[in-house]
C-alpha cells in the first residue's frame, strides 16, 4: 500500500465523515458549512486523480457558489431544522 493509496483512503474517510455529519446535524448553517468542506475535499481527490479541470470547477462552484446560494436562502428561511 503506497502513500498515494493512503491519501486516497484518508480523503474517502473524510468525505464519508462530512456526509454523515450533514445527515446528523439539525442546524442548517452547520450542514451547509460541512457541505462546503465536503466539496473542497472532493476537489482534492479529483486533482489527485488527474482531473484538474473538474477540480477547479468544483472548488469554485461546490465550495464557493453553491454554499453562498444556500446561505442566502438560509438567511431568508431561518437556520433551525425542526
Amino acid at each position: 500500500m503506497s502513500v498515494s493509496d493512503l491519501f486516497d483512503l484518508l480523503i474517502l474517510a473524510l468525505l464519508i465523515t462530512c456526509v454523515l455529519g450533514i445527515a446528523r446535524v439539525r442546524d442548517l448553517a452547520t450542514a451547509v458549512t460541512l457541505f462546503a468542506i465536503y466539496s473542497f475535499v472532493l476537489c482534492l481527490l479529483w486533482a489527485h486523480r488527474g482531473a484538474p479541470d473538474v477540480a477547479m470547477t468544483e472548488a469554485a462552484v461546490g465550495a464557493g457558489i453553491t454554499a453562498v446560494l444556500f446561505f442566502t436562502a438560509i438567511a431568508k428561511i431561518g437556520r433551525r431544522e425542526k
Partner: protein
Amino acid sequence: MNVLLTHVDYIAAVAIFLVGLYILLVKQNLLKKILGLNIMETAVFAFIVTAGMTDNGVPPLLGPDAVGPFASPLPHALVLTGIVVAVSITALALALIVRVKRECGSVELNELGKVE
C-alpha cells in the same frame, strides 16, 4: 476482501450516494432535501471521474513532452457539464423554497401538509 480494497473508490461513491438518498427521503426540511440531492449528484460525479482515471494520474493534456497513459477526457467533460447544471438546479430549487417560505410561512414538509 481484495475486491473491497481495489474497488474502495466505487464503494465510497455508492455509500455517499446512499447517505444523500437517506437525507432526501427522511429529512422534512426542504433545504436539507436539496442538500441531500447535491450530495447524490457529487457522488455520481465522483464515480464517473473515478471510472475515467488511470493509475499514474496524468491529466489529459497533450503537449510536446506529455507521456501517457492519460486519464480519459470524456468523463471529465461530462462531469464539468454536470457540475454547472447542478448549480443551476440548486439555485432554482432554493428560489422556489424561499417562495414557499414567503407564501406558506414554513419549509417543513410535515407542516406544509396542514397549510390550506
